[in-house]
């Protein structure tokens, strides 16, 4: 095959065209990242008058801090909870939709709308619904005999932010699962039906294994989301409380920087978060590169 090569007369034009993208990357990613790295090895006094180089002391302090370790644990529970809840619900919905639509594309586009709801709005929505005094959801749960109060009970609060964060991911996961389901040839399912597999068995022995590349991809995407993209959800729903019970890592970074004014400690936390995202990305590429595992 031959591809036609388009050449520009002006040598500067290509650079001009990529400049905005480069600028955005520089201003919003490279620069803050390098600032975080730089700040993480410095310490300021309480009045911000003096700054000194302290090496890895900020990191040592962090890992000696029980609050930070607790936040790590909360983040783990939160991330796995959010990921499994949103993927589970999305898969269930996708299986049902797959049965109904079988290729109707208009309907699919419509299903992505919830994804467009801004995270803060969604957070406030959940905050209202589960509000111990006025929320419908809280009322319903209380009717079932459970005394819901996420403003006092740390576990309730954790469940709330998991639901709120998972909610936002469902439509995204749904679309990927639906696309995955629709790419499984119908004849495979039919062959399995003739082979005497019940619908339940067909799902677990044929459909689910064939979805595994999609599932793995979504697992990483959702973990990354839960780790780094859930600040606004937490901020609008529980604000990290009660106490520190929903103060996940990404929320704690902000709180320590802007409320406790511990810039060095906060920067060190950012660096750790960056390392985690890099690790997840590496895992992602490693396995996606290997492609479908069958």
């Amino acid at each position, binding site marked *: 095959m031959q591809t036609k090569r388009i050449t520009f007369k002006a040598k500067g034009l290509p650079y001009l065209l990529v400049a905005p993208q480069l600028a955005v990357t520089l201003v919003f990613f490279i620069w803050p990242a390098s600032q975080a790295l730089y700040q993480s090895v410095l310490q300021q006094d309480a009045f911000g008058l003096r700054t000194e180089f302290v090496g890895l002391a900020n990191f040592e302090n962090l890992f000696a801090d029980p609050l930070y370790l607790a936040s790590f644990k909360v983040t783990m529970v939160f991330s796995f909870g959010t990921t499994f809840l949103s993927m589970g619900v999305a898969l269930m919905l996708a299986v049902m939709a797959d049965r109904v639509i079988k290729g109707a594309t208009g309907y699919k586009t419509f299903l992505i709308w919830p994804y467009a709801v801004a995270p803060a709005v969604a957070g406030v929505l959940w905050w209202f619904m589960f509000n111990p005094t006025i929320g419908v959801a809280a009322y319903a749960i209380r009717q079932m005999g459970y005394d819901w109060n996420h403003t006092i009970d740390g576990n309730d609060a954790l469940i709330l932010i998991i639901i709120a964060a998972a909610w936002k991911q469902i439509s995204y996961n749904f679309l990927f699962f639906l696309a995955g389901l629709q790419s499984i040839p119908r004849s495979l399912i*039919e*062959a399995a*039906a*003739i*082979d005497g*597999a019940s619908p339940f068995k067909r799902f677990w022995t044929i459909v689910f294994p064939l979805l595994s590349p999609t599932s793995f991809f979504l697992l990483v995407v959702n973990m990354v989301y839960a780790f780094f993209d859930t600040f606004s959800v937490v901020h609008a729903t529980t604000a990290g409380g009660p106490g520190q019970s929903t103060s996940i890592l990404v929320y704690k970074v902000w709180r320590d920087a802007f409320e406790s004014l511990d810039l060095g400690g906060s920067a060190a936390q950012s660096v750790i978060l960056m390392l985690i995202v890099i690790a997840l990305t590496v895992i992602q590429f490693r396995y996606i590169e290997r492609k479908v595992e069958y």
Partner: protein
Amino acid sequence: MATILLDQVRKVYAGNVEAVKGVSIDIADGEFIVLVGPSGCGKSTLLRMIAGLEEISGGEIHIGDRVVNNVEPADRDIAMVFQNYALYPHMSVYDNLAYGLRNRGVAKGEIDSRVKEAARILEIGTFLDRKPRQLSGGQRQRVAMGRAIVRQPAAFLFDEPLSNLDAKLRVQMRIEIKRLQKALGTTSVYVTHDQLEAMTLANRLVVLNHGRIEQIGTPLDVYEAPATTFVAGFIGSPAMNLIPVKAKEGGLALETGEGLLAPNGHGVAQAILGVRPEDLVLATDGVAAPGGLSLEMTVIAVEPVGAESYVHGTVEGLKDDIVMRAGPKTDYAPGSRLKLTAVPEKLHIFDAQTGARLNA
């Protein structure tokens, strides 16, 4: 082992698409039936209704002594081979074969011996551990066959199983399927659009067109006495010459009134006259066979295909070209005029309106 009986089976898809319009076939135990017809004529739909993959809109399907209209595919005791093979891509060849048996709770030892036996018959024993993607097209085809035979079902259903293979492999697998079916004696329904495949495999052919049966019969019967002009044109390659004719004093002639073609034994005003390319011969000394067809053709081209040649030409007053089969090294210059004839026993007369065969 079972008989299969279709009684006025109909299929209407959503949107009022009538894909199968009242089809009745009585399939004997152990018989190899081929459903053949052009693309879109409803072959797959019919087969899928037998399999239970498609709801039956009307009529009844019997497998053995049961009406199976409302029986699940798994409980119909049939196995199906799909055009794209439909092998489970994440399972080894062994697991592909064993899957149906495991679902039915067959004992482990029994599964193992049946899988090994099927693998031996199909010569796929050496790659039981491989995944389908590690196999060639022909090997996948064998695995798909293996998956059908391990189950030891009452009937095999095939939906164009060879159309994804190259020509050479297709012929080889065709022979193998035939041999296997004979050895196992399992009732089989086979769908194809390839008339040659249909002719070579079938005990009986069912020629379908627009959701209706045009003819049921042995390949030879269908070839020698096509029931309609559709069958006449579909079965046989190159196709039968179909010539519109009308009655004239003394016999049937071209519609222009020119050239006497054949005696009018049926007393019709108009008809379609059919003659196969191999039944057209040169009239020796320009004299037509007594009581037979007489035609003068102008050669357009000669198509040598090795063992024989096909001579294409025009006949004055006739829209379509005429094809004659000739010997291997035939060489007529374009424009040469040939006097052709055919004996009366080789002529087929069809009704001009309905296309139905008129002569016995």
